[in-house]
């Protein structure tokens, strides 16, 4: 028995950054918006007892319950895909705010190079720099076109930073708030990087350096450096998140309603338009249809792709033929780095999620790749995010993993270890893609998403090059022992690496090779929009949220225009 509800102008699937931005912008324009969120309501008041590593960081309090839904994984098409039964490699969020609640707040604009990577690589290095197996392509939008939307997102979140990076794109205005405090640990990195001839700068941070009121009138507080950001919510309302900014902005218009415990399982389509979504109440398992003039997929990378697949919207990518765009260009990130062991104790347990300094001297195409067998690179950062004792047990190479020697070394080095880590870009490869699993299902009987992914030669070359650079900086920082990353072999879904998954619902200028256009409007259904890091045609050397936020503002503009004029926006 399905209940059909009264129609609305816009329905969003998921209420994190993208769902919140769409809601705020559309409801301000008078559109009636409903956000369907499968998790619960939550906010700053729920985090008064959040300084709890065990509950939040180890047992994943804010993350998706995999007993209800997960994905299946294999390294290549010959393997049998099996469920990711426990969280590991990446952490999927759930609940109001989504991953925008448990994020660190490191907020970047992708480089101008990223948006035109194919054109610029071919121009500089010739068409054969990478083999045809790498499916890099331009994004169908330039940095300059996206700049106003970056600016908009940064003003909404009050981003703290300094415009001192010679390699990033031109900014139309300065950071809304000044950079965070440059602590002794960061100064150590700054000095070493400067000595080596690099250009260090304070990492752009959404843990705000001072109290701020955004253009919508929402107030964000100043960070207290408590050291509990990643995997935690902020009890101070000082780590910008959707539930303290765009969601209240939308609610204040009177045109917005969030419906919790609402798990969407299908996008309904008739002809070349979508008509709404079908969802389950996760408590009662009642089934509803929410009709809408515009449907916006605003859940995570994985679920956005899955919903299009189970709803048969768009052409599924086929690695055999290279045809189809849905599920294509899934990319992850490569994590080169090095750890240094020092003599003196440092306040490593203090910090904030985006408290760090970075260099871009080896990111994008800021250095010459003529003699290198890879493209792109990595941002290299030293962050002081707040070390916690369960998950941080650093020991020098050669130390046993348990017993007396382990105990002594892990206690000794907890406050005597610093790292320089790279976020390595990941280039899409024809064998890395998302599909639907034909065996395993979620609790609603819907097939699980299937991930086929492995590291490539490009990844391995990038990793080993950047690791050497990271080790050089750590050495210059004065470490008595430097432990550099080992070489990467096959991707392993077990240990945590990064939640920067991208691709699968990529944007572009050509319907044959992309899922959505540069307003994130679906090529096959003009009233369907899909937003998220899934839009990225490859993965860059930064955290994705800044670019996702910019794309969401661009999409909001598109939806408002579509609502007035209809038709294709490009």
């Amino acid at each position, binding site marked *: 028995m399905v209940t059909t509800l009264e129609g609305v102008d816009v329905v969003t699937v998921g209420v994190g950054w993208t769902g919140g931005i769409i809601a705020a912008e559309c409801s301000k324009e008078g559109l009636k918006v409903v956000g369907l969120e499968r998790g619960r309501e939550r906010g700053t008041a729920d985090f008064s*007892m959040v*300084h709890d*590593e*065990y509950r939040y960081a180890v*047992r994943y309090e804010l993350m998706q*319950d*995999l*007993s209800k839904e997960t994905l299946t*994984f*294999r390294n290549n098409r010959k393997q049998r895909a*099996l*469920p990711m*039964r*426990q969280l*590991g490699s990446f952490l999927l969020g759930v609940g109001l705010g989504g991953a925008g609640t448990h994020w660190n707040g490191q907020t970047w604009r992708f480089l101008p190079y990223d948006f035109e990577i194919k054109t610029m690589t071919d121009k500089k290095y010739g068409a054969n720099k990478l083999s045809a197996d790498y499916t890099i392509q331009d994004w169908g939008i330039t940095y300059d076109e996206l700049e106003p939307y970056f600016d908009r997102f940064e003003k909404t979140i009050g981003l703290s930073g300094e415009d001192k990076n010679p390699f990033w794109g031109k900014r139309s205005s300065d950071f809304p708030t000044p950079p965070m405090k440059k*602590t*002794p640990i960061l100064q150590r990195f700054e000095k070493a990087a400067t000595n080596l001839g690099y250009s260090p700068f304070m990492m752009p941070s959404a843990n705000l350096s001072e109290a701020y009121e955004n253009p919508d009138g929402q107030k964000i507080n100043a960070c207290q*450096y408590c050291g509990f950001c990643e995997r935690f919510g902020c009890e101070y309302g000082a780590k910008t998140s959707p539930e303290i900014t765009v969601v209240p902005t939308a609610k204040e218009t009177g045109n917005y309603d969030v419906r919790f415990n609402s798990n969407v399982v299908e996008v309904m389509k008739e002809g070349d338009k979508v008509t709404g979504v079908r969802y389950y109440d996760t408590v009662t398992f009642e089934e509803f249809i929410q009709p809408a003039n515009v449907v916006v997929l605003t859940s995570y990378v994985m679920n956005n792709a899955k919903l299009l697949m189970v709803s048969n919207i768009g052409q599924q990518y086929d690695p055999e033929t290279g045809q189809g765009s849905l599920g294509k260009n899934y990319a992850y*990130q490569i*994590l080169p780095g090095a750890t240094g062991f020092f003599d003196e104790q440092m*306040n490593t347990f*203090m910090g904030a999620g985006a408290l760090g300094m970075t260099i871009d001297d080896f990111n994008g195409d800021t250095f010459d790749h003529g003699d290198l067998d890879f493209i792109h690179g990595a941002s290299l950062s030293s*962050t002081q995010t707040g*070390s*916690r*004792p*369960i998950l941080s*047990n*650093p020991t020098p190479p050669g*130390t*046993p*993993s*348990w*017993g*007396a*020697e382990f*105990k*002594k070394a*892990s*206690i000794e080095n*907890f*406050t005597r270890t610093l*790292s320089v*880590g790279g*976020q390595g870009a990941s280039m899409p490869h024809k064998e890395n893609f998302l599909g639907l699993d034909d*065996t*395993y299902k979620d609790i609603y009987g819907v097939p699980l998403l299937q991930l086929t992914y492995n590291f490539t030669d490009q990844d391995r070359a990038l990793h080993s090059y950047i690791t050497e650079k990271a080790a050089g900086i750590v050495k210059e920082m004065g470490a008595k022992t430097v*432990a550099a*990353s*080992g070489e990467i*072999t*096959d*991707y*392993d*879904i*077990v*240990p*945590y690496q*990064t939640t920067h998954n991208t691709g699968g619902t990529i944007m572009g200028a050509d319907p044959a090779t992309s899922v959505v256009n540069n307003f994130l409007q679906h090529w096959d259904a003009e009233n369907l929009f899909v937003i998220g890091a899934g839009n990225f045609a490859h993965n860059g050397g930064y*955290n994705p949220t800044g670019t996702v936020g910019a794309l969401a503002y661009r999409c909001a503009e598109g939806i408002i225009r579509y609502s007035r004029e209809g038709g294709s926006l490009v």
Partner: protein
Amino acid sequence: MAEKDKNFSRRDFLKTSGIATGALIGGGIIGGLIGANTNKQDNATDSSSSSGGTKEASSSIRGLTFFKSMADFEVLSQATERIFPEDDLGPGAIGLAVPYFIDNQLAGSYGENSKEYMQAPFAQGEPTQGYQSRLKRNEMFMQGIQLMQEEADSRFKTKFVDLEGEQMDEILTAFQENEIKMRGVESQFFFRLLRQATLEGAYADPIYGGNANMDGWQMKGFPGHQLAYIKDIESEDFVEIKPKSLGMNH
């Protein structure tokens, strides 16, 4: 022990993970994986301290919520103590009440795998595909502890808890190196779980029953639940702060 000086499983795990040495990505936490490769013998401690939690945070009555036999609980206690032994820095797993912490966790959602995808079919996969067992964690612990007892019996003709420290280490190392045949799970997976649970019990907030007297935090220089460090974040010197538990505020 010389021939057991390697930890293949751990090394392979590091190799395939591609994150061998603790670069902090997005604040990611992989420091714990650094350089773990050998299990050298040590003599910093012996295991003669009595089993079952010698020192606890409070004088309240303590009981077992998952284990039904004190004998099994004592095997667990001694195994965790070998992983995290008492030394001149401070208490080991038993002194920190880690065994009670683990007992509690095994009785709850951790032990029952309530947030894990446990639907069939179960199939053996590649190591890169992760955990594919139909066993729940508390079933793995029960089986692992019984096998420790059996190993003690077959190797040394005595009870696990009566072994010398080095003999216990030999058995634990055999688990770690996947030499023990377990049903439905590989012994290296169980060992990794046991090691991780021991560290969790040593360093989690005492509200969960381990980290007695916050001694785990005290040893490590971690102040636990502090409201803010904004006043100290720019300090050039290491700041020693008396640890605080979430339970002390409410």
